[in-house]
């Protein structure tokens, strides 16, 4: 695998993606720098998950080009399995392997893909379980874990492959509210350790505190992007403001009963000051 450290971790040029007649991505230009943490936000159906899945080629782009660590993913001859070794992916629904213990979830790809011996794979796995605070769950099966524990195990599974880039597809959306904090704490630690991360999320507090850059997507295009305090604190675009007011103050909008028609002239409501996730 050829890597050019000088190049961005992710480069996307004029990316289009359609599902049949439905155009989901309409020309995305986008970069993630080495060591950068980028949060992608936007309403459901805005194409943010599709964008993330295109980076790992779980979705085949209709047009446009994608490079990850300098390797062109959209090249038809790309050695996809080799490139994916350098990319970790965390799913909304965890996708742990239910027939394997947590430890074996973390070792199976190390052994089959990286050809590590059992002892080395288990050493790496246990180190990563410690990193996410699941040392005592090594021999449990996924079904015996809570959602938050499953997601942390899934993160540890990705980390065991020692990726250069981590992709998170709404990692906390399937969790009970009180379990969200543990997962976000793990992700925050990962960001502090210098991991390059692209995170599709609805957790605005996480985006505000952890992201280097926030990208707002709507209708298949990037509407605006920039440092979190700008995009979340003083959005330039009306669509961003409307989205943030719906997310941050949902009951107020619901009472109005006409969320899309009367754009509030005031700036978007400020983020909640009390931090419910102890970030």
């Amino acid at each position, binding site marked *: 695998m050829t890597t050019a450290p000088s190049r961005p971790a992710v480069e996307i040029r004029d990316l289009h993606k359609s599902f049949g007649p439905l155009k989901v991505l309409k020309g995305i230009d986008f970069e993630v720098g080495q060591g950068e943490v980028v949060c992608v936000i936007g309403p459901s159906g805005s194409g943010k998950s599709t964008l993330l899945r295109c980076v790992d080629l779980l979705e085949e782009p209709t047009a446009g080009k994608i490079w990850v660590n300098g390797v062109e993913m959209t090249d038809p001859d790309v050695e996809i399995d080799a490139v994916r070794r350098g990319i970790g992916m965390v799913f909304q629904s965890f996708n742990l*392997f239910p027939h394997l213990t947590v430890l074996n979830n973390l070792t199976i790809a190390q052994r089959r*893909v990286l050809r590590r011996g059992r002892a080395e794979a288990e050493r790496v796995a246990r180190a990563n379980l410690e990193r996410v605070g699941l040392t005592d769950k090594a021999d449990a099966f996924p079904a015996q874990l809570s959602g938050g524990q499953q997601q942390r195990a899934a993160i540890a599974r990705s980390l065991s492959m020692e990726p250069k880039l981590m992709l998170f597809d709404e990692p906390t959306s399937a969790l009970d509210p009180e379990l969200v904090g543990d997962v976000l704490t793990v992700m925050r630690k990962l960001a502090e350790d210098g991991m390059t991360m692209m995170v599709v999320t609805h957790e605005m507090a996480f985006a505000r505190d952890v992201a280097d850059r926030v990208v707002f997507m709507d209708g298949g295009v990037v509407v605006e992007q920039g440092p979190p305090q700008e995009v979340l604190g003083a959005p330039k675009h009306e669509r961003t403001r409307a989205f943030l007011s719906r997310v941050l103050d949902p009951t107020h909008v619901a009472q109005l009963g006409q969320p899309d028609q009367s754009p509030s002239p005031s700036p978007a409501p400020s983020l909640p000051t009390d931090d419910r996730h102890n970030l």
Partner: protein
Amino acid sequence: MKLRRRQRERLSLGLQYLVFIAIIATVLVAADWDRLADAFFRVDIIKSMFPTIITVALRNTILYTLGAFAFGLVFGTILALMRLSRVAPYRWVATAYIELFRGLPALLVLFLVGYGIPIAFPEREIPGGVFGSIAIGLGLTAAAYMAETIRAGIQAVPKGQMEAARTLGMSHFTAMRTIVIPQAFRIVIPPLTNELILLTKDSSLAYVLGVTAQTIEITKFGRDMLNDRVNATPLLVAGLAYLVITLPLSQVVRRLELRYAKAR
């Protein structure tokens, strides 16, 4: 007088038991037990069937069944993967095979294998002799059924499993073999058990290949004894011999399912 709900339920249940017991009792009393025992339960004949029915007939039935099941499982898994393949000709071939062999009686397929292959390849022999012919002959039909079962099992494994495996850098083949298929088999244990029990009984078709005293299985053994002794007792013993196989099998599978229940 108006009965309360629980009283009504108790009364109704009591009546049902009464009718049930009356039917059983009538049948038991009306049957001619002496003649039945004479036709189906002659102790001297039962004794004469041992130990051959165990050491030869039961053993062969188990061997033929396991041979056909193993062949069908391997071939059926290949067919299932072909049916799910992105390569269209693979799908066509697998679909045609499954439709054809599900539609043919197992007896006919066994006959074609047993007599057709030696004619087609006069220089060669089917490995394993009668055992090989039965394993292949019954396995070809079983594979068609199992392929559909296994395909359903593979499709029942959530798509995210394959995606997670691929994002860890596994090839499609490795992901199938280590992640998807092991889960698919846990899902299809009950229908595959059904297939194994059906094969146990289908192994009685071995007679069309002309079995010898060494290769005889339970049903043929029972029928030969029936003709020999002009008495139906061997059929009863043969039936019990099949139950000796199938009843413990069900227990083993139930255990297996319980063991896998936590790993789902």
